[in-house]
């Protein structure tokens, strides 16, 4: 038995790729998101590789790299995120995964990408990297702020009536908990309907530098990510001061939970609290039990979240980045950069 990795022809082999994803990652409607994710991305088309076993007619695994424009310090670089990594159960002996993981480094080694990153959610996902002697560059922690208590009470109390009555008091208590109101001077937060425009591109251009790694957030990027996504709808809250866009938050609403997918601002410490207050107000009447956010451990955002009554929970993902040695990107990655990553950066 000989397993090899080879590039996928996305024009002629798309259905085979989708077939592997559907049988291994059945929770996502892959066919519906394929064109958007692989072909419509403003950063460019995706690259994919199959793991093939020579004696079998069909591939036994697949991996993809989706390009992303990223600000790496002062420079805008084309980078990539590993996505849609799947291997049939009988072939999870690490070897095929190693082949595919190394294949995802190919665009980096060829100089097409400055670096690529993967986001293993757990230790199991780290196995290929550990084998290669690579460790996580940063860890992403989930934060949560409870808004209502029905769900928690429902787990502990059998009687629905008792849950309802107790929840009245619990919800009121959560609502009345002393919170510092964050109405930073002159900032007006409002719901942003419709597509992202030039002011978002302008804001993105004005926020960069230092030792920071973050995704580019041009209007084109944001429209693709949040307005053209065929599977999900998102709500956007903007913060303006004197008519100028100074920050925004993107929120996804589930049945009982809301997720802050991105929060971006010229000054997170100044504008962030007002935006998060507005997010909480925005979702409060929708029976949302908790608001969740994800950010790099120890980042400025994690401090902001704690300051507005979010509590740190588990590590939800690790970021492992690969850059070719003796390149600018490699030096940057090994210079202890600040990863300004949010949940958005983990979404494929």
């Amino acid at each position: 038995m000989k397993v090899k990795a080879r590039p996928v022809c996305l024009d002629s082999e798309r259905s085979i790729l989708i077939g592997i994803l559907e049988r291994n990652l059945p929770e996502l409607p892959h066919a519906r998101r394929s064109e958007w994710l692989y072909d419509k991305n403003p950063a460019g088309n995706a690259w994919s590789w199959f793991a093939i076993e020579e004696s079998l007619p069909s591939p036994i695994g697949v991996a993809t790299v989706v390009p992303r424009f990223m600000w790496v310090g002062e420079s805008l670089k084309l980078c990539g995120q590993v996505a849609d990594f799947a291997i049939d159960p009988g072939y999870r002996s690490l070897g095929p995964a190693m082949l595919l993981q190394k294949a995802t480094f190919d665009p980096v080694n060829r100089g097409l990408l400055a670096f690529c990153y993967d986001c293993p959610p757990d230790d199991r996902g780290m196995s290929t990297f550990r084998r290669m002697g690579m460790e996580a560059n940063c860890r992403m922690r989930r934060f949560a702020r409870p808004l209502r208590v029905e769900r928690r009470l429902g787990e502990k109390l059998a009687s629905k009536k008792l849950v309802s009555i107790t929840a009245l008091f619990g919800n009121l208590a959560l609502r009345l908990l002393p919170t510092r109101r964050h109405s930073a001077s002159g900032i007006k937060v409002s719901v942003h309907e419709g597509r992202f425009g030039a002011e978002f591109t302008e804001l993105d251009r004005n926020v960069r530098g230092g030792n920071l790694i973050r995704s580019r957030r041009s209007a084109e990027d944001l429209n693709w990510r949040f307005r053209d996504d065929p599977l999900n709808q998102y709500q956007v809250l903007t913060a303006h001061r004197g008519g100028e866009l100074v920050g925004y938050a993107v929120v996804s609403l589930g049945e009982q939970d809301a997720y802050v997918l991105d929060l971006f601002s010229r000054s997170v410490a100044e504008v962030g609290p007002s935006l998060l207050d507005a997010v909480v107000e925005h979702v409060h009447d929708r029976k949302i039990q908790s608001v969740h956010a994800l950010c790099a451990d120890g980042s400025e955002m994690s401090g902001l979240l704690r300051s507005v009554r979010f509590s740190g929970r588990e590590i939800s993902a690790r970021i492992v980045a690969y850059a070719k040695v003796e390149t600018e990107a490699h030096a940057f990655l090994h210079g202890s950069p600040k990863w300004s990553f949010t949940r958005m950066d983990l979404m494929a």
Partner: protein
Amino acid sequence: MIETNTITVRLKEFILQKFPLAKKQGLKGSDRMLDTGIIDSLGVLDLVGFVEREYSIEVSDEELTPENFQSLDALTAFVQTKSANGSGPRA
């Protein structure tokens, strides 16, 4: 060359101790460990570390195949072949 039975016993001991599903279900020599989820990729990594330490062998990426890691019997045969080709077990 190390006896097959000695290798099997030692490997089985490690697998039962390390992987809860193997301990729960029991483990026969021919049981398919990858298909059934007894070991996953992280488990393979642990197993590789164990056999490399225990038998002073080096396992290459190309050898991390289902053929070698699918069952206790397959793993035993792999370790025996590697030991015979390379250095012996640690004293």
